[in-house]
């Protein structure tokens, strides 16, 4: 006998049954019945954000730091839904499992341009993995459970459930989640064994191999990271990773080459360019990784493991495409490797490592230190040194600071690094940090920010203070939208059109105005003490770190260039001459 209840009660019950502990949201007219149901229970804790975009990013941070948890959001119709669109798109591009429940005007008013009405399923169709408009109370329980299944299974992503207000008031029979297979959506998780065997054979015969890993390894769960480490140990091959995959392989390991791509290390990019076998695991060959595509790793055989069949052969043609979940495929690979114990070409591998060590010796992350001004790289090196032995989680905004964070903060474990990779959403870091801190109340959660990005979702400081979430906002303040300025230097003759951060607030006073603590530092000698003050302050902190204003983020593969045409930090010449006319047209 199933229980009778209202639609609003069903929503809350389904969240409980799906194991949701925290819900990020903002109330409004079209979701009042659900908020009333939330008020009358205490299993699902609601976190009131200050802007709906913040709610989705917070849910993303929550999901990413929680290894397999689905983030959950509740917003109202109209502007509530449209404000969530950036977060949804961000979650789609970074494959983050999020369920967003939106209120809708009552069924009979849909299409009448009612107050706070918008075509939510129409608007979000292309920025969600799937979405639903609930038209009958009888469909609601199934849709609620299905949404969690779709968000978390296969390639994860955001799912929207749009619930008209009359459905929230209507009464129907609730049903609990079932283990039944979904009637259509059943992604393949086990890889094709014949292809895996062929891949192991190719790997065993490699002379200049490289593992190129991505966010798919993180999404596949901690077990996938453990298997990647095991496979790397068994083979002795070098490992690099995309921005999204940092932490899956420990940065302290000798086989680690650092991040690859546009701001990746010299050794990682040259290993990609010169390898003879590339093993791509949960990475999608995006343009920030490949650089000039017709010169991308020209002499390699490529193996690609991905759960999304549409990722295989999308940007780069591969020789062996294995569709499956990273952990499942890696498990088979490790097992077959152990069973067959193939003989790797030790002398070729030794020569390959010698070459890689030569590239490493180029020290592509070196920078000129200063005793008078804080170099942003130095600030992050110190931040890393002072936080690495703690239970630390890092989020970022988007821009130079994000790339420096990826270069100078070294991650040893998965799910410790939350950044907006695909969409590149400025304003991601603070709400994401709030989500992470909600999941890990005792951890040290730091949002590495720029002074421009942080202002995009600054209002969430209020959320942090309300819920006593001691997030630390570490602003590398160079008074520029640094990456825009860098591109203007490289591409537009140093004409810094609108990229100067004018009329900045006093971040120390701003922190205090919100009820947090503010710290300012512009002296390299005082930096360590200031960072320690930040770490030891019990509540939320805004750290305004004044850094060198016109520092460029190097190394860099300029637009339209190949992996072996990087700009290194010791480049001396006219930076405005590096990129040709065709390259200037790219983004």
């Amino acid at each position: 006998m199933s229980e009778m209840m209202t639609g609003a009660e069903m929503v809350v019950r389904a969240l409980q049954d799906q194991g949701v502990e925290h819900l990020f949201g903002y109330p409004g007219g079209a979701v009042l019945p659900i908020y009333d149901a939330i008020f009358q229970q205490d299993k699902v804790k609601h976190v009131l954000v200050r802007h709906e975009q913040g709610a989705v990013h917070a849910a993303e941070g929550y999901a990413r730091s929680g290894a397999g948890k689905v983030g959950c959001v509740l917003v109202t119709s109209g502007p509530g839904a449209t404000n969530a669109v950036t977060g949804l798109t961000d979650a789609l591009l970074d494959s983050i499992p999020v369920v967003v429940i939106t209120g809708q005007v009552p069924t009979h008013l849909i299409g009448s341009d009612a107050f706070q009405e918008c075509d939510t399923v129409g608007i979000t169709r292309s920025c969600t993995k799937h979405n639903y408009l609930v038209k009958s109370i009888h469909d609601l329980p199934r849709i609620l459970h299905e949404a969690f299944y779709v968000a978390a299974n296969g390639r994860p992503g955001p799912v929207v459930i749009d619930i008209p207000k009359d459905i929230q008031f209507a009464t129907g029979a609730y049903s609990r989640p079932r283990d039944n297979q979904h009637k259509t959506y059943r992604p393949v998780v086990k890889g094709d064994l014949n292809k895996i065997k062929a891949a192991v054979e190719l790997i065993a015969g490699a002379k200049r191999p490289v593992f190129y890993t991505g966010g798919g390894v993180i999404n596949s769960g901690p077990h996938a990271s453990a298997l990647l480490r095991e496979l790397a140990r068994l083979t002795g091959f070098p490992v690099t990773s995309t921005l999204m995959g940092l932490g899956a392989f420990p940065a302290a390991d000798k086989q680690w080459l650092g991040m690859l791509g546009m701001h990746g290390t010299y050794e990682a990019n040259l290993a990609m360019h010169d390898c003879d076998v590339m093993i791509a695991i949960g990475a999608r060959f995006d343009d920030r990784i490949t650089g000039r595509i017709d010169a991308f790793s020209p002499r390699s055989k490529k193996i690609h493991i991905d759960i999304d069949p549409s990722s295989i052969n999308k940007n780069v043609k591969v020789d062996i495409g294995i569709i499956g979940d990273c952990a499942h495929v890696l498990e088979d690979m490790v097992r077959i490797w152990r069973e067959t114990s193939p003989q790797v070409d030790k002398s070729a591998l030794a020569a390959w490592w010698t070459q890689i060590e030569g590239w490493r010796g180029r020290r592509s992350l070196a920078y000129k230190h200063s005793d008078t001004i804080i170099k942003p790289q130095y600030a992050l090196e110190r931040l890393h040194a002072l936080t690495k032995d703690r239970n630390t989680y890092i989020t970022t905004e988007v821009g130079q600071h994000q790339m420096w964070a990826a270069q100078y903060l070294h991650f040893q474990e998965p799910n410790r690094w939350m950044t907006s990779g695909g969409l590149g959403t400025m304003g991601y870091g603070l709400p994401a940090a709030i989500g992470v801190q909600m999941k890990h109340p005792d951890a040290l959660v730091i949002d590495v920010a720029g002074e421009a990005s942080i202002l995009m979702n600054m209002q969430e400081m209020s959320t942090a203070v309300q819920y006593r979430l001691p997030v630390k906002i570490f602003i590398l303040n160079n008074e520029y939208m640094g990456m825009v300025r860098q591109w203007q230097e490289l591409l537009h003759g140093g004409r810094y059109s609108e990229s100067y951060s004018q009329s900045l607030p006093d971040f120390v006073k701003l922190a205090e105005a919100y009820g947090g603590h503010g710290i300012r530092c512009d002296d390299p000698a005082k930096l360590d003490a200031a960072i320690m003050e930040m770490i030891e302050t019990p509540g939320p902190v805004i750290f305004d770190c004044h850094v060198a204003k016109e520092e460029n983020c190097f190394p860099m593969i300029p637009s339209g260039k190949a992996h072996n045409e990087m700009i290194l930090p010791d480049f001396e010449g006219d930076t405005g001459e590096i990129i040709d006319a065709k390259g200037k047209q790219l983004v």
Partner: protein
Amino acid sequence: MSKPATHYPNAPKSQPTARHTLAVIVDNEPGVLARIAGLFSGRGYNIESLTVSETEHEKHLSRITVVTSGTANVIDQIKAHLDRLVPVHRVVDLTEQGEAIERELALIKVVGKGEQRVEAMRLASAFGARVLDASLTSFVFELTGATEEIERFIKTMTAVGLTEVSRTGIAAMSRGPESM
């Protein structure tokens, strides 16, 4: 450096493109057509013809027949993207399976008098078109056939007073005993 640099995939102009007919079985739920049409427009693929109708009423299943063109790589991408949509049950490339049967239906209005009208009637019967409506100055013909046949008919009838065309788009099915 020889060629102009770009870090985007080369435009696939050097590769041959081919026309493919895909049959897609979907749940007949609101928005499913928008989802499929949006996939094509959002990713820059072509739709040459699109035909949709519910084919199994009890199961609420619709069959969508899409005719598209692209390089082999693009066609593979289209199929992979269609297949990962939640309400999609199956995607079958009828072109890849072999010579599929493809038919469409056209309604054609011809307006004219005297010798032109007689000629229109003669041509239509040569094509095997049926007369659905006739007035003293017009005919409405129905013709079912392969796309090329319909095209030929329309081109021919243009000379004898064609004023309006309505076409269903392509319905397709594989030959032989196998069903999808």
